[in-house]
C-alpha cells in the first residue's frame, strides 16, 4: 500500500508511545495527535489521550492548569515539543532569533516547554522541517534546556527527535542524539548535510519501518475521523474529504 509522508511520521511516532498510559498533545500538532490516537487504537495500556484545545470527550482536559499540575504529579507519560531551533544538547528555542530581548525574529514564546520538558518522562521532539536553519549547533535562546545538572529535579526530558528524514533517540547521559533510523528514500549524508549539530552515528543505520497495511487502515479508518475535529484542514489535505 502506498502511504503519505505524514502517515510514515504518524506510524514512527506511534511506535515510541507503546506501553504508556497517558499521552498529552499540544496545540497545532496534527501529526503527534494522530500518532497518539494510533497508539491508543492498538494499545491496551493507554488510558487517556489529552489533546490540548480539544473540546470533545475523551480528549478534553479539565482545564489548562490541570495539564501542568498533572504533569508534575507524574501522570503524563509523553508529550511533544517542537522548536524554531533545536541544538545537539536538545535545547529548544521557541522564543526567537538574535540578541534577546530585542530579537530580530520573535516567535511566540516558551509556552509550557520550560516546565513540561523537565517533568514529562518521554518528551518527543518533532519538527516537519529538517534543515540547518532549525537544527543548529547552539540555540540563540534556551526556552527549555535539554539537560540539567544532576541536582536539578528532572524526572522528564528529551526521548526522541522525529523529522521528515529520520528518527533520532536522545542519550541523556551522553547528552547527545543518536541516529536510530532513516526514512525510506533518504540517506545518512542527507541527514548529516541538513543537521547543524553532531550526533552519534551507528556503523549501520536501519531504514525506518514503513506503516503496514493494518496500520494504514487504522490511521485512515480510526484516526482520521477523530483528528479531523480539531484539524479539519490537515485531515482534508492528507485523506481528502472525510
Amino acid at each position, binding site marked *: 500500500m502506498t502511504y503519505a509522508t505524514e502517515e510514515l511520521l504518524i506510524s514512527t511516532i506511534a511506535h515510541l508511545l507503546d506501553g504508556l498510559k497517558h499521552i498529552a498533545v499540544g496545540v497545532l500538532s496534527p501529526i503527534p495527535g494522530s500518532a497518539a490516537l494510533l497508539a491508543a487504537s492498538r494499545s491496551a495500556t493507554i488510558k487517556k489521550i489529552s489533546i490540548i484545545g480539544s473540546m470533545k470527550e475523551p480528549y478534553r482536559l479539565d482545564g489548562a492548569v490541570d495539564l501542568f499540575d498533572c504533569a508534575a504529579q507524574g501522570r503524563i507519560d509523553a508529550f511533544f515539543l517542537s522548536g524554531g531551533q533545536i541544538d545537539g544538547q536538545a535545547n529548544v528555542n521557541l522564543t526567537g532569533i538574535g540578541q534577546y530581548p530585542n530579537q530580530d525574529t520573535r516567535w511566540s514564546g*516558551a509556552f509550557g*516547554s520550560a516546565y513540561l520538558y*523537565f517533568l514529562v518522562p518521554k518528551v518527543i521532539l518533532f519538527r516537519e522541517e529538517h534543515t540547518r536553519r532549525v537544527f543548529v549547533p547552539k540555540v540563540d535562546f534556551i526556552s527549555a534546556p535539554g539537560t540539567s545538572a544532576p541536582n536539578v529535579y528532572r524526572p522528564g526530558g528529551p526521548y526522541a527527535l522525529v523529522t521528515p528524514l529520520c528518527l533520532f533517540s536522545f542519550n541523556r547521559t551522553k547528552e547527545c542524539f543518536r541516529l536510530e533510523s532513516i526514512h525510506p528514500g533518504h540517506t545518512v549524508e542527507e541527514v548529516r548535510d541538513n543537521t547543524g549539530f553532531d550526533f552519534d552515528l551507528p556503523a549501520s543505520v536501519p531504514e525506518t519501518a514503513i506503516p503496514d497495511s493494518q496500520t494504514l487502515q487504522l490511521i485512515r479508518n480510526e484516526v482520521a475521523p477523530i483528528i479531523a475535529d480539531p484539524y479539519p484542514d490537515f485531515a482534508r489535505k492528507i485523506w481528502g474529504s472525510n
Partner: protein
Amino acid sequence: MNETITDIISLINQINDGSKIAIFKDCSVPMSLGRGLIKRQVRNLHLVTVPTGSFLPDMLIGAGCVSTIETAGVSLGEFGLANRFGSAIKEGSVTVLDATCPAIYAGLQASEKGIPFIPLRGLIGSDVLANRGDFQIIDNPFERDDPIAVLPAIQPDFTLFHAPMADQAGNVYLGRQAELKIMAHASKKTFVTVEKIVDFNIMDHEELGSASLSHLYVDGIAVASNGSWPLNLPGHYDYDRKTMQSYAHAAKNQETFNSWVDIYLGKELRETG
C-alpha cells in the same frame, strides 16, 4: 438593580493608563472591552496573558496601548506569528517578561492564596528564568541539595473577560473556563462582559453554580452581544475565521494594521453607537 451592572463605556473609563491587566488566552477573550481600550487610547498597560495570548494582545500592542507584556507566548495560532508583538519587541517599544504557562498560573494562584511567592518545578537552566530578574532559585527547605524556582505572586489591577451570562446579583457563569476564577480571585478588580443577564440566581442553580464566579469577585458587568467576536465563545458562537485571517494579513505591518483597526473600530462605532 445591582450597581455592578453597568455599560461597557463606564467599565472602560475606569481602566487607567498603566494598569496591570490580565486576559485569558483564546476564549472568553473580552474583544469588545479591548476595542474600547484602543478607542480610548489607553497607554502603558502592563498586560498579563493567561498564560498565552493571540489577537487581543497583538492588537493592543499594535495600537500603542501596551508598555509591558508578561506572557508565556503570543501567537495567532494557525494564522501565524503575532507580528505587532514581534515588531514591538524588536524595536524595544514594549518590554517583554517571558514566562512559561504554569509560571503565569502559579503566580496568579499565589495571589489568589494571598501568599507572596510560590515554588515551581522546571525553569532552572532556561533563558526564560535567566532573564527574569523577579524569579529566584532557592534551596528547598525540606530537602538537601534541591534547588527550586520561586516566583512572586501576580496581582493584576484588573481581570477582563467575556462570559455567557451573569445574573442580577452579579454572579457570572463561566462554563468550562475555571481558570477565570483564579484570575478574578487574584486581581484587585474584575470587569466582565456577558452575552446576557438572566433573571434567576445562577448560584442557586445546582449545575451552573459550581461553574460560576461569585459576585463577591465581580466589580463591573456590562452586556456586550458577541463580545468575543471575532474570537469564539464556546457553546455560543464559533470563530469568525474570515475576520481573523484579514487581521493576520493586515497586521504584518504597521500601516495596514492601522487601516484595518480604523475600519474595525469604525464598524464598531457604527454598530454600537
